């Protein structure tokens, strides 16, 4: 069965510092990986997906199949990045049933 691990429950950085939220997965096939974000008092929403290879709000994430990782990175954190971040996996070819990690609460301090 597939599994998503986010080793850090909490991550605190200062504004302007680089940030990396870790995500590791286990799945024997070809997965699709996503990052979802939930800002305070807002609903969960998609931040980015690996197949798009895009940068959203300055965040990027690269799928590393050798290390089975999909870490989320941003070179210069902003206070408005403070939120709960969830890494999620979809089995290749399946419908949109996602397996989520437990989430990392990012706090960016002024």
């Amino acid at each position, binding site marked *: 069965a597939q599994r*998503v691990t986010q080793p850090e429950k909490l991550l605190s950085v200062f504004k302007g510092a680089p940030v990396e939220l870790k995500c590791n997965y286990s799945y024997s096939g070809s997965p699709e990986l*996503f990052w*979802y974000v939930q800002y305070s008092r807002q*609903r*969960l*929403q*998609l931040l980015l*997906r690996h197949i798009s290879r895009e940068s959203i709000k300055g965040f990027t994430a690269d799928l590393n199949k050798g290390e089975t990782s999909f870490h989320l990175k941003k070179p210069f954190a902003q206070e408005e990045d403070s939120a709960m971040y*969830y890494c999620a996996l979809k089995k290749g070819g399946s*419908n*949109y*049933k*996602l*397996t*989520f*990690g*437990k*989430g990392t609460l990012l706090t960016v301090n002024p």
Partner: protein
Amino acid sequence: SAVISQKPSRDICQRGTSLTIQCQVDSQVTMMFWYRQQPGQSLTLIATANQGSEATYESGFVIDKFPISRPNLTFSTLTVSNMSPEDSSIYLCSVEDREQLFFGSGTQLSVL
């Protein structure tokens, strides 16, 4: 993007009672999903609800406990039956639209 209205937003219920959560989407969608998020835990998929067919439940979830209706392409309900304190969670409705999931605002359920 799909806009989802979910209600109630929160409720406090007595043990042994049932609560029905409603999910309304502003567009027609094929697949709707119900997730549970227990305190400090990840989102766990309860079931997939497709219009015109029985819901498909994930391991550990059964229809008697979480009956789901999907009468049309824009609406679904999830009932949490015979509740116990262990059912205290956030319940989330989501839909797949244009290759991504959209989520409702969630129902925070507390069972006394």
